[in-house]
C-alpha cells in the first residue's frame, strides 16, 4: 500500500500554480498564455486527485469524478482559446496579445 506525505503533494500543486501564474503574467504569445493556464489548471486537478486518493470510504470517488469533469472543461477551454487565437491572427496577423488593444473588431 502506497503511503506518501500530504505536504509534498500540496507543495507540488503550489509550485505548478506559481509557474502557471508566472507564465500568465510574463508571456505575450497567446499560445504560451493558454499553456500557462493549462499548467495552473492541472495543478488544481492534481489537488482533487490527491485528496480523492487520501479520502477513506466512497468519498474519494467524488474527487475523481470532479477531476474527470474538470479535464473536460479544460479541453473545451483550449478549443475555444485556439479559436480566439485564429481570430486574432486573422485580424492582426500576429498572436501577440499586446497588439489586441482595441475593444472592437
Amino acid at each position, binding site marked *: 500500500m*502506497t503511503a506518501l506525505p500530504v505536504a*509534498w503533494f500540496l507543495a507540488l500543486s503550489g509550485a505548478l500554480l506559481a509557474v502557471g*501564474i*508566472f507564465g500568465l*503574467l510574463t508571456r505575450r504569445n497567446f499560445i504560451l498564455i493558454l499553456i500557462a493556464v493549462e*499548467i495552473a489548471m492541472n495543478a488544481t486537478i492534481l489537488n482533487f486527485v490527491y485528496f480523492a486518493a487520501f479520502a477513506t470510504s466512497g468519498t474519494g*470517488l467524488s474527487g475523481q469524478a470532479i477531476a474527470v469533469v474538470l479535464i473536460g472543461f479544460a479541453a473545451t477551454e483550449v478549443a475555444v482559446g485556439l479559436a480566439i487565437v485564429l481570430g486574432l491572427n486573422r485580424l492582426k496577423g500576429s498572436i501577440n496579445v499586446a497588439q489586441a488593444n482595441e475593444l472592437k473588431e
Partner: protein
Amino acid sequence: MNLEELAFLALAAVAVGTSVAALLVRELVHTILWVAVFFVDLSAIYFLLNAPFLGVLQLGVYAGAVTVLLLFGIMVTRKRIFSRDAATGIGPVPLALAAVTFIFLVASLGEFPQGTLTVQSYDPTALSGALFGNYGPWLLLLGLIMMSGVAGAIYLVREGRE
C-alpha cells in the same frame, strides 16, 4: 525513504522542470514538446495515486488532444513552424508575484495535517458508477458546455464575418 516516495519526488521534479522549460524556451514547437512531457508526467502521478482512469484520461485528452490542438494552432498561425518567438523578458514583478504565491501556499501547509496518509485504491467500475450516478448532472453540464464551446469556436473562426 521508500520506493513510492522516490518515484513521487522524481515525478514532481520532472513536472516542475518541464513546466518551467515549456514557458521559457524560445521555440514554440519545443514548448509543445515540453508541455507534452509535462502532461505524461502528470498522468504517471495519477497512476501513482491509484487513479488509473484519470491517468488514461490525462494521456488521451491532454497528452493527445490538447497537444495536437496546440500544434495545429501553431501550424496555422505561423508562416514557418520553427520560428523563434519575439523576446519577452522576465520582469521582476511577475517573478516576485509567482514567488509570493508559492511561499504563501507553502506557508499555509502548516495548517494541514502533517505526516503520511495511505493512498486508497478505487475500482474504476465504481468511479463510472459515481459518474453516472451522483455526478450525472455534472456530466450533463459538461456535455452542454462542450457543445456550446464547439458552437462558440465555430462562430469565432467562421469565414465571411463582417
